[in-house]
């Protein structure tokens, strides 16, 4: 299957269209996150990724097509790697040299409709409290931390986290019963 060129969204993103950036994000996040694996033992890749994506939004108007697909994704990869290296430099500079150099090619992956449909059916079978905890994280629009989310559900933080864990375990078991292995989700 041919990979998508996410630069189809670039003109709109460069024009300040946040909805277009959302569509780009939906396909770009996973390969970008994977590209940060090398740094996982030293930097919080979630923080680096979010900061990188904010910067990509800011510099997108200056992203010039170079004739190759996924120019903005490649730019984002470079931004993310540079931010991770900056974080590393602040900790222990000796590590950095090994991590610099040519960037590996990353590409957006298509969504597996079978996995998605199966996952949604499994989600609908979750017990009430794990489902509530999971939904609280999924649908929170106010960037609240877990303690605040737990409080809104009348749960202690530990109970909230236990329900998240239980929800994920139940989803994994349900997926496996339907022939979907978790590793298929991330590849």
């Amino acid at each position, binding site marked *: 299957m041919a990979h998508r060129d996410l630069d189809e969204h670039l003109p709109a993103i460069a024009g300040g269209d*946040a909805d277009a*950036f*959302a569509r780009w*994000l*939906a*396909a770009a*996040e*996973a390969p970008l*996150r*994977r590209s*940060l*694996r090398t740094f*996982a*033992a*030293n*930097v*919080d*890749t*979630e*923080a680096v*990724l*979010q*900061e990188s*994506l*904010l910067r990509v*939004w800011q510099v997108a108007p200056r992203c010039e097509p170079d004739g190759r697909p996924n120019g903005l994704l490649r730019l984002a990869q470079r931004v993310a790697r540079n931010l991770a290296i900056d974080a590393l430099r602040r900790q222990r500079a000796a590590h950095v040299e090994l991590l610099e150099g040519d960037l590996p090619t990353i590409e957006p992956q298509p*969504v597996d409709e079978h*996995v*998605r449909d199966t*996952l*949604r059916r499994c*989600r609908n079978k979750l017990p009430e409290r794990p489902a509530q905890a999971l939904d609280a*994280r*999924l649908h*929170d*629009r*106010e*960037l*609240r*931390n*877990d303690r605040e989310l737990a409080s809104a559900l009348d749960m202690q933080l530990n109970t909230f*986290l236990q329900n*998240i*864990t239980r929800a*994920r375990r139940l*989803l994994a078991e349900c997926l496996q019963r339907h022939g979907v292995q*978790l590793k298929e*989700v*991330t590849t």
Partner: protein
Amino acid sequence: MTPAERDDLIERATTAWRPRDLDGGLRAHPAFHDLDDDGRRALHEELELQRRLEALLDDDGLSTTARAVLRRIRG
């Protein structure tokens, strides 16, 4: 650290919420600092998996990471 304590730290850090510094930049989750190297790698793997699950469950295909970024962009 017991396996249960490690798993608890990983669970805490899988949220998309991250503290900000005085300049508004994002900092590591507090639980990240308490994990050893293997625990941090396990956290990254868990984040890869959870964000994919979130995106698959979302009508717009967006994870909580993407939602957090868009929230900051849109204000």
